[in-house]
């Protein structure tokens, strides 16, 4: 448990260092992108649903898997859609 707390605390510090330098211009993509990263719970869902024979635990895990995948796939795609619009030179139409 203590080992996990160490990982947690150190990651908070790394996150703070990396993210406090993100400019205001990119705060919306930062939010949707980091939100997609929080969908890492999908890994937990795979473990929970895939490694048990308990039926209700499997259904809970499967529901979690779908919700988390929506979060991950939607989050990364919509962030990409936003970021491709950020251009230095306007597109000539």
């Amino acid at each position, binding site marked *: 448990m203590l080992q996990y707390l160490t990982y947690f605390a150190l990651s908070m510090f790394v996150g703070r260092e990396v993210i406090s330098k993100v400019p205001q211009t990119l705060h919306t993509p930062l939010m949707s992108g980091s939100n997609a990263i929080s969908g890492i719970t999908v890994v937990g869902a795979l473990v*929970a649903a895939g490694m048990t024979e308990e039926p209700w635990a499997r259904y809970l895990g499967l529901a979690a898997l779908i919700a988390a995948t929506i979060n991950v796939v939607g989050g990364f795609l919509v962030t990409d859609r936003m970021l491709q619009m950020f251009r230095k030179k306007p597109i000539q139409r």
Partner: protein
Amino acid sequence: MSREFIELAYLLAAALFIVGLKRLQSPATARSGNQLAAVGMLLAIVATLFGQEILSPVEMIAGLVVGGLVGLILARRVQMTAMPELVAAFNGFGGLASALVASAEVMGAIGWTTILTITISVVIGMVTFSGSFVAFGKLSGKISGNPISFLGQRALMALVTLVTVASMAWAMAGPESLSAGLPPAVFGILVLAGASLVLGILFVVPIGGADMPVVVALLNSFSGLAAAATGFVLGNTALIVSGALVGASGLILTNIMCVAMNRSLLNVLIGGFGQEADDSSPAPGLSEGRSVAVTSADDTAILLSYAEKVIIVPGYGLAVAQAQHQVRELADLLQKRGVEVKYAIHPVAGRMPGHMNVLLAEANVPYDQLYEMDAINNEFDTTDVTLVVGANDVVNPAARYDKTSPIYGMPILNVDQSRAAVVLKRSMRPGYSGVQNQLFFAANTRMLFGDAKDSVTALITEVKAV
């Protein structure tokens, strides 16, 4: 495959997340950063799927495909103006997933520390879920944006909190007593999930629509913390590290938003601040016994056409009127005439942090024309005309000098220092803070009343005719 292989894949995924976030520090590298993070996620999923002995791989892949398709459709269909509510909704799904995963672990849980981490994960996850969906409703207009308060709200909040804490204790009470059917932990978790769901609703309902940027940033942080808590339950380092990264990110953004509004987080969360002005009834003219100068589109067009330098200040009203494309067209016309045009973006402009920048990027405005508050504030005194489109409180000079004003001390754009200011607004109604804007009564300010989109369209026509 071995446990070490999976751990190695998780380490690589975490590294990709950090490098990806790091690349978000510049618009030029941001897109590749997001793609790197997505690769990291894919790696973590594939390693889990094939590295562990998954009993039902087909079912798992089906789940991934279903979720992926829903995510794909939502991400493709969304309008850029609707981005805040989509982020809130995705956030809600993430929180729900974390809570469900933790709940699924309760049967096999041994020892009170494990149950405690499960309960923490369920509370944060469920609050994130219901809170995010209330925020989604408020941002999309499905629920009133006004702060909602009712008799006994505080008492109900206290009661639900009490039930939450009690059910946490209940869940921890006897995980060992498996002999008598289901252990109390399961019932405890069920009650806890319900109470947390209500708690999330009660938490967001009293907060006004314009404070949603803070709420969405905070819930973003919660969804990360929920994932991290679930990581503690499963002993999964990928969840702990990634969850902590997102938790930190959300907290930083929450703090930035609060500073930009000069309010404490507590003040935002208590709620009830401000009523969103119903802009429909036009009441231009006199206020506080002083008069404002009203101008017309053709006068403003002449003023703009013969200026050397123009700053455009877009605000919430521009996002609501969806006038970003018209504003860009106007700026293009002026630039063709040799006018220097810059955009000044206040940190809380739009409906979520950085939302205005996305809207202007969508309208094809190059990002190097967008300036943050601190970068442009000393340029207003050398600016001929400042065009304020749908912004209010963030340009009120009272924040600088009037100690009695509720917005005193809030960082603002110094529009009053420019040689002339033209404010595009529907009416004289005060902004979100409820105070009248001193800028409107200044000698060098002109008001151009009307819907932002209509006014800017009229300006385009007039500038073309100059």
